[in-house]
């Protein structure tokens, strides 16, 4: 498989809840709204969504409760059977899998973390983490070793024999994370993993999560209702509302160019300077005269504040992390972002 092929590719996915969704979907005229569908007695959990997730990418699906984000991720893992469209994982249509093949797929390729942890209350930390390994029939010694390894990875050494109820919320979610990583999945689903935690712990877990991701480089679908969290973690953000994706783009683009009014409402109160990166704001070089030292494209405008204020160049060259100049930044534009003036 080529490196550029998407890991998950969803095309025109529909998930309808109601008495007989398949036949309803067939007779559904194009362009019927969420509310009209609801008036017909159906709930559009996922409404005509097409989205791709690339290898090693972190896609954050953001939306308020009831927007269909959890339903969508459950369609990716086929916890829900979709009503229409196709979902391919590594080029394979998951709706065509038999029960046995689906179990194999989950045992070897997918891991999932849940909002309220979903730990088995009667098993110790060690046994919870080893659970997926036990299910696929790995021998006792092997799975113990692997489980201890992941437990160490998430920083729960010494708690192996504890039962879930003996742990704090943050620790319980670490167990959930360890369990989802035990089988070394390629695809990692996280369904609002930090929403049940209090703000301080949430921040700490986010840092921890970024550290893990740097190390493991998995393909990730991350669900959240917290826009700040989405901006902090995402390569790309998909904003959902009433089952449909309103906009799917990089954090910079979403903040700078919200596609719809709904998305704009989320971005209104955001300090854009802390989100937008120099490379996101930069224009192609296109023969502009370049002078002086380039700035780092990976830095946010906020991080560049001092340079932007003190420098007197009109155009600043922007370089990638290898030092190659990739574009130019108009200092005025950047200052406008910094000062919050559109």
């Amino acid at each position, binding site marked *: 498989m080529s490196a550029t092929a998407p890991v998950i590719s969803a095309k025109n996915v529909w998930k309808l809840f109601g008495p007989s969704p398949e036949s309803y979907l067939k007779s559904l005229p194009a362009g019927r709204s969420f509310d009209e569908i609801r008036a017909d007695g159906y709930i559009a959990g996922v409404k005509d969504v097409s989205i791709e997730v690339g290898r090693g990418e972190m896609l954050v699906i953001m939306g308020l409760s009831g927007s269909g984000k959890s339903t969508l991720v*459950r369609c990716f*893992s086929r*916890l829900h059977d979709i009503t229409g469209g196709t979902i391919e994982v590594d080029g394979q249509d998951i709706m065509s899998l038999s029960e046995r093949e689906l*179990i*194999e797929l*989950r*045992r*070897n390729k*997918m*891991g*999932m973390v*849940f*909002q*309220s*942890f*979903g*730990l*088995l*209350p*009667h*098993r*110790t930390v060690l046994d919870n983490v080893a*659970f*997926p390994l*036990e*299910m*696929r029939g790995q021998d006792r010694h092997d799975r113990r070793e692997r489980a201890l390894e992941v437990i160490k990875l998430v920083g729960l050494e*010494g708690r*192996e*024999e*504890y*039962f879930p*109820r*003996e742990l704090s919320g943050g620790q319980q979610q670490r167990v*959930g994370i360890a*369990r*989802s990583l035990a089988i070394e999945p390629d695809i990692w*689903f996280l369904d609002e993993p930090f929403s049940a935690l209090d703000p301080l712990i949430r921040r700490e877990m986010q840092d921890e999560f970024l550290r893990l991701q740097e190390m493991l480089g998995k393909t990730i679908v991350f669900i959240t209702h917290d826009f700040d969290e989405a901006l902090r973690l995402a390569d790309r953000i998909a904003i959902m509302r009433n089952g449909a994706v309103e906009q799917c783009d990089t954090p910079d683009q979403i903040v700078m160019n919200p596609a719809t009014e709904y998305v704009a409402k989320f971005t209104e109160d955001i300090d854009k300077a802390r989100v937008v990166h120099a490379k996101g704001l930069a224009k192609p070089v296109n023969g502009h005269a370049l002078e002086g030292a380039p700035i780092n494209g990976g830095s946010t405008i906020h991080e560049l504040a001092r340079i932007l204020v003190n420098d007197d160049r009109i155009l600043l060259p922007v370089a990638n992390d290898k030092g190659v100049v990739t574009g130019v930044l108009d200092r005025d534009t950047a200052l406008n972002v910094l000062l919050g003036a559109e």
Partner: protein
Amino acid sequence: MATLSTEIPDTSDGTWGRTKVLTALLVTALALILAKAVGVLPEWLNRIPEAAIPPTAQILDAIFDFIQNDLGLIYVTRFIAEGPLEFLLDTSANLLEGKRRWPYLGPIPWSAIAAVAAVVGYAVGGWRLAALGAGTFIWTAAIGQWKIAMQTMSVIVVAAPLAFLLGLVLGIAAWKYGWFERMLKPILSVLQTLPFFTYLLPAVIFFKVGPTAGAVATITFAIPPMILMTTLGLKKVSPEVIEAGQMSGCTRWQMLRHVYVPAARTEVLVGVNQVIMLCLAMVVLTAFIGMPGLGAKLLAMMGSFKLGRSFEIGVTIVLLAVTLDRMSKAWVVKQPVHFERGTPWWKRHQISLVALVLFVGFTLLAQVFPILAEVGRKQHLSQGKEIDVVIKSFLAIDVIKGTTEWLRWFLNVKVLIPFRDTLLAIPTPAFILLVVSFAYWVGGRKPGIYAAIFFTIVAFSGWWDRSVITLYTVISAVALATLIGIPLGVVAARSNRWSKSILLACDTAQTFPSFIYLIPAIMLFGVNDVAVVFSILIFAAVPLIRYTIIGLSSVPPEMTEAADMSGSTRRQKLMSVQFPLALPTMAVGFNQAIMFAFFMVIIAAFIGTQDLGQELQRTLAGTELGKNFVLGLNVSLMALTFDMAISSWAEQRKKRLGLD
């Protein structure tokens, strides 16, 4: 019916149509009664003529006969009875009471069992339960009832695990297959209201007299709550735990074995508790089909009015009940606790080891000191005769005697007999109409229709008068229980400390096998109608008090605070805030009281009644399976009528108040 309806004030804003229907029903009923009073009612409208009553019992007998002999079911059941079931019962009987059967090891010395009970008690609930466990068995041995108690226990140790397994499997099936649950539900609600005599006779006929029949009846009786708890528990497993299992790549069997059943642990264990308690309750009652054990002894002692011995056996039964209940409940709440890594093997299994050592130790000691193996006939500490004298002389004190005799006279002559005669004087159709209007008024249309169907069936069963007498006993007892129970509950709910201790007392009283409630009734009032009503009264008062307290104390504090801040007096607060909010819960208690009363009224047949229970008890002597079923079904149908009406009221009310 009037007595009943005053207990549940109708707070619904009945629509015009409803009032019209209700008036029509009541006017028709009244017209029929008046017509009878002036003597113009034709006889066929007063009671259904004999000729119109279908021979249901005979038809049923023919059907049973067909199933039993022509289809050969009897060979299957007899095979089970004489094969595996009898083997299990013989084994437990050998181990516990020393019956001469395989494995020829028993009886296990009482001291060894008491020691193990103490260790088990300690393991699930600390020192207090250890003392309770040991104390119960020491008492039983010391009082000279070891053998009969073990006859009872030997059936329980077989019946309870079997009932648990069957209940678990059926519960899982009901959870998995919707059609199975829909089929099972009505059967279960009939089973739960069917009088226990109706369990006993088929058991005897199909499974041979003796412990096997007793065990079968016990198992059948104990299964329904296990099924319900299993289904409930499985349905309650959190969706995320289920999804976590699926994402871990569980197959269907792995899901059930490793995810669903362990995650439903609490409900399953509550089911275990109920199975054990129902087994005990039923095993005691199997005395009626001649099963030896505590129940039979109690029956014999009460029959010959030996109050002292009855009292002692009662204490043993109560102690056993409390021990089994507390231990199994402690097991429900006990959560696994981790051991530090590197804890040695013997330390991880410390408790099992201690139990084993004590068991072996006492068994060996018993070889040297026979008193530790068996408390002999001359050695036991029973004070039966002395207690007898004390009780009888206490009851003979002028004040006590005067009071009980006056009460007996007053209740009998002024309340019970006139009430009974009134009910019996009402023409059958009018009676049915009154019941229907009650059900309609309280529960709405559906319970009303069911009431009409159910009571019509009862009317055509050919046992109308006896059914009315059964109903009269139930209504009188529940009405009296309400008069006593609700004020008591209201007073107790005022203080935290009181409500806690009374709740504890109620919970404990609810674990007693119903048989126990006959003892004080017979002691105080002898053998007559008042004793019957009294025994039902105390049995039915327990849930009434319990739910009154629960209902009142679960009123949200912000509401009572709001009432306080509005300057309401205690009475105003009770009447306009606490009662309205507590009523749905109290109705549940009231419903349970009626169900308990229907259960108890049948047992009270032992004292001597003229109702369905008496007839039922008579059928036990013979093989009239059809008649037994008809009688049992009558009780069940009447109970279900009230159950449906009151529960649907409570549910509607709860919904309207936005509770729950």
